[in-house]
């Protein structure tokens, strides 16, 4: 009986830890999101929990999610490239109370998929793709975005 109680507590506890989860996806899923017809601008940010400049720019993306309904923000974690266990990312999402949608990209061979996001990308993160999915116009930047730069990128595609 005692062990059942402990088990129940553990289950509740771990449930809380992974309260907000993130879907594990493949490169094909990201391509579908990019190509999906929508009147919303797509903002796709590539980041990882170990990447300090990524975490520094995260608030700009969160701000966008909460303040603009003409934009879809997708945060794509590439943590799985080095570490197969997604728990660190789940804990990060919970701790930071992230409101943007987070995906975990599960691909083993970066050289096979980096060009599918953008030819100019060398693979360094942070990196951000912005797409107007009505006109197909797109911008890609491989650097940390400062206050206001993200809005400029979006507005330049309007």
């Amino acid at each position: 009986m005692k062990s059942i109680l402990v088990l129940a507590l553990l289950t509740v506890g771990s449930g809380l830890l992974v309260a907000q989860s993130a879907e594990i996806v493949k490169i094909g899923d990201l391509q579908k999101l990019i190509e999906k017809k929508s009147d919303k601008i797509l903002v796709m940010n590539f980041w990882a929990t170990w990447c300090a400049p990524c975490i520094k720019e995260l608030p700009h993306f969160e701000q966008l999610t909460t303040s603009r309904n003409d934009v879809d923000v997708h945060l794509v974690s590439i943590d799985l490239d080095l570490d197969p266990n997604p728990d660190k990312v789940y804990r990060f999402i919970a701790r930071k109370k992230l409101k943007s949608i987070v995906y975990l990209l599960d691909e083993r061979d970066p050289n096979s998929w980096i060009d599918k996001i953008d030819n100019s990308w060398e693979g360094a993160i942070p990196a951000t793709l912005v797409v107007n999915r009505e006109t197909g116009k797109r911008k890609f930047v491989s650097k940390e975005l400062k206050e206001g730069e993200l809005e400029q990128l979006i507005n330049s595609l309007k």
Partner: protein
Amino acid sequence: MNALKTILAMALLVGIIAATPEFKGYEVGDTASDFRLKNVDGKMVSLADYRDAKGYIVIFDCNTCPYSKAYNDRIIALNKKYASQGFPVLAINANDPDLSPGDSFEAMKSQAKRKNYDFPYLVDETQDVARTYGATNTPHVFVLDKVYEKTLKVVYIGAIDNNSRNASAATKKYVEDAVDALLQSKSVPTTKTKAIGCTIKWKNS
């Protein structure tokens, strides 16, 4: 009137400079330039110091990046395997220590000592070498072929292999394949690859 002309000429010049596209670094096939950088032992090192080298494995690296950590033993192994065959490893850290304190010169010294580096670990304080080469990530490899005396050709740019997580699971060993090809006077099978990595921490300009 002359002053006006000067101002106009200057304005034009500024316009030209501003319109010049940013230099993107080396592409495969380009001629690479030598550098002179300070090693962790305090001595200055140039590629030309290696008189008997057939080429070089230049790796932009650092202490702190999880990818640099994951590849550290593989970088050490590359030098063990290829230095004696004429392709020494030279590691260069270009990260701004103000932005990344764990990549300071002192931290580089401890890293080299702790891991018994038998190759130079050079600091690119001005970041000029990283910019000239077009390094963006760590680790980012440039394999150079010594075509003649001081003429160096870039023959490979990219990742060490295709599995960051696990060296033994890598099915493509890009750098080894490139150097093996050069040693057999064959053409390099894969000349450019991309990999996830940490961005080089550029000084705020």
